[in-house]
């Protein structure tokens, strides 16, 4: 049995851990609020973008030549997986569930005989995927130094992807991130960004009498790369909100577990102490009786 000193030390250490997890939970809660506002503020832009894109792509008939970013280059051989994860751990299953989704997809594609290339955004996803897909990972973007996610960060990633697409390095690109539903629910999501998934036809929008400046094709060429960046930006913001949500609930759990452990340990400690006192008393009494 552990001595009293051991127990005391153990309780003290669990208490220290609890303090840390509690603090982390509160920090995550504060950051979550900010991340959530940022994600909501970015929504109108993405929505408008989709609307305009839907309008434009409706104007293009099936027999007309369409930009490769919209309709694809007619091949399905090489797939690029853009895996966005967090930069840090201590957030429950957040990183591993995104990585698992990407891993499943990669395995399925490999089984079909397709070529898979992976771009990792965020250190944790890189660490998780490196072991299995070392030779498939072609790029790794580290966002740890970034304090507030800006559009420029997403743009840098988007530009690189488009450049690779231009060079014909891949045919299909899929974005992996976690959609923020609520603090306790984050949904790992796969979204195809190249070729752009056909935007749902809005129906009533007037595709007819639009003037284009410069002409349609040029606008679409200008717009599609932007759309990629916007989608990545949206994914990064959603990811960040999800990360803090996951971290908050993970730390909440940890704090509660630490509390339970302290309770149990304290009980054992008191029992042991009582047992020792009783033992000493018995020794004294039996010693006195012997005299």
């Amino acid at each position, binding site marked *: 049995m552990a001595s009293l000193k051991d127990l005391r030390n153990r309780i003290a250490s669990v208490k220290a851990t609890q303090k840390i997890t509690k603090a982390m939970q509160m920090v995550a809660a504060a950051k979550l609020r900010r991340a959530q506002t940022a994600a909501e503020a*970015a929504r109108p832009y993405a929505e408008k973008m989709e609307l305009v894109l839907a309008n434009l792509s409706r104007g293009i008939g099936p027999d007309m030549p369409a930009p490769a970013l919209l309709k694809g280059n007619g091949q399905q051989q090489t797939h690029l997986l853009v895996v966005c994860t967090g930069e840090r751990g201590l957030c429950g299953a957040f990183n591993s569930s995104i990585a698992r989704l990407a891993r499943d997809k990669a395995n399925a594609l490999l089984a079909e005989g397709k070529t898979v290339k992976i771009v990792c955004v965020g250190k944790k996803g890189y660490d998780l995927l490196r072991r299995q897909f070392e030779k498939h990972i072609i790029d790794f973007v580290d966002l740890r130094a970034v304090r507030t996610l800006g559009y420029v960060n997403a743009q840098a990633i988007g530009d690189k992807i488009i450049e690779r697409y231009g060079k014909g390095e891949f045919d299909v690109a899929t974005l992996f991130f976690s959609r923020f539903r609520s603090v306790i629910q984050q949904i790992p999501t796969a979204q195809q960004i190249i070729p752009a998934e056909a935007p749902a036809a809005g129906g009533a929008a007037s595709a007819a009498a639009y*003037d284009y400046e410069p002409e349609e094709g040029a606008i679409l060429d200008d717009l599609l790369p932007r759309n990629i960046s916007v989608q990545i930006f949206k994914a990064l913001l959603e990811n960040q909100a999800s990360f803090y949500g996951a971290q908050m609930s993970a730390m909440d759990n940890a704090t509660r577990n630490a509390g339970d452990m302290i309770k149990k340990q304290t009980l054992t400690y008191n029992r042991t102490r009582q047992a020792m006192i009783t033992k000493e008393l018995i020794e004294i009494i039996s010693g006195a009786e012997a005299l």
Partner: protein
Amino acid sequence: MANFHFELVSPERMLFSGDVESVVVPGADGEFQVFSGHAPVMSTLHAGVLRIAGNAGAPQRVFVRGGFADVSASGLTVLAEQAVDLAEVKTDQLMQDIKNAEEDLADAKTDDARARAQSILDGLRALQTAVAH
């Protein structure tokens, strides 16, 4: 003069949404002014200044760079990758930023970093020209 609905959106947030009388848009093929009842137009943007009139609550002059404007029956929507209200720009701060950007450009080692620094500098210079006018 009838007003129409105008929205200015940047990737980070919605900057303005409300009714205005007219907006001058720096289109890729030249500036154009939008009034109520304008024919539907879709245009990409040049780096330049949006001039908004007819709403005291709206920013009057906004520097925009990259993006596009969409004029439809429901109004004008400007999606700008970068949008700065010129009333909020401080000249000395801007000068400092430009100086920093120039230093970054001089320090840049890789082609990649140089291109990035150059584009930041170009953006700031365009903003400076806009402020000066």
